[in-house]
């Protein structure tokens, strides 16, 4: 599939191709594609997250191949180290790591439609790559990728000179995201009035929704096990 797709774009220049680079690309591309397919087809969300880590590592390898060393490190640290861990944290925290039956099709005719739409989008991308002339040799405003100077120094210089205003805007974006996460994840104010009673009382003190049912079942299941401990059985009953 990749070979066909590569041929769709244009003839690949075979000059200055070293066997190591080609081998690395092939292995990294296989890792990326296997991880991407794994994210989509895995039934368990935890498996999807682990497959996403695999894809991100493959992309980091491809970044290194294209002399984007800083971005490869950031990719591993931020994406694989922070974002996927956040995903896993939410999956474990909410306890949604149960299997999903992905063979069942809840919406009739959705999958053929999805396949058709994605095929159309991919064909459009390939057609664009085939017929359009990319701007080559354009005067760079942000600096060139010089092999002699360090990649980190180049990116740092560009970020703090040419892209200074977007860089400052991203700081505002991060602050807004943090505030938004705090506001969204905060408990409702009605439940926080009875905050001093305790965590278990707090959950049952909420409005009677479906979320409290697993907690009750868990305590009911745990109570007969810990009858020897008087405090635990008192808590459970």
């Amino acid at each position, binding site marked *: 599939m990749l070979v066909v797709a590569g041929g769709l774009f244009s003839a690949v*220049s075979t000059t200055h191709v070293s066997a190591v680079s080609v081998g690395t690309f092939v292995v990294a591309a296989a890792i990326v594609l296997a991880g991407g397919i794994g994210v989509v087809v895995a039934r368990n969300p935890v498996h999807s997250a682990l497959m996403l880590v695999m894809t991100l590592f493959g992309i980091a390898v491809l970044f290194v191949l294209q002399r984007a060393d800083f971005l490869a490190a950031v990719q591993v640290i931020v*994406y694989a180290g922070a974002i996927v861990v956040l995903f896993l944290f939410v999956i474990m925290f909410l306890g949604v790591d149960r299997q999903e039956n992905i063979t069942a099709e809840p919406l009739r005719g959705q999958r053929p439609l999805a396949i058709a739409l994605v095929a159309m989008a991919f064909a459009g991308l390939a057609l664009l790559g085939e017929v359009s002339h990319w701007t080559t040799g354009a005067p760079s405003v942000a600096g060139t990728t010089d092999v002699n100077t360090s990649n980190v120094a180049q990116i740092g210089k560009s970020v703090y000179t040419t892209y200074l205003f977007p860089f400052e805007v991203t700081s505002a974006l991060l602050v807004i995201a943090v505030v938004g996460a705090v506001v969204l994840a905060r408990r409702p104010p009605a439940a926080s009035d009875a905050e001093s009673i305790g965590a278990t009382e707090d959950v049952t003190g909420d409005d009677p929704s479906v979320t409290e049912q697993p907690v009750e079942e868990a305590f009911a299941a745990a109570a007969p096990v810990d009858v020897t401990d008087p405090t635990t059985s008192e808590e459970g009953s």
Partner: protein
Amino acid sequence: MNTAISGGIGGAWYLSLAAVLFAIGAFGLLIRRNVLVMFMCIELMLNAANLTFVTFANMLHDIGGQVLVFFVLVVAAAEVVVGLGIVVAIFRRRANATADDLHLMKG
């Protein structure tokens, strides 16, 4: 098309891989029902775009593409934080992460 990268293979291969990865992510976003997995598919698509940016930065010898990937990383992090906050807030109300059940705002 000037795709000759010294010591490397042509940029068209990277762009093809990015297009395939984007297609996989879009397909997963369309067919999956779990909100968390849909978020992961969005991450796949963002990574495909990042790979395209880095490829063009290498092809055109312009550092601007790499800087843009840096900003995309920031936006992706913010998006994941807010999105997962919304998921946690939804889970407090109803105990499943299926997109079919989230029709509260449907008219």
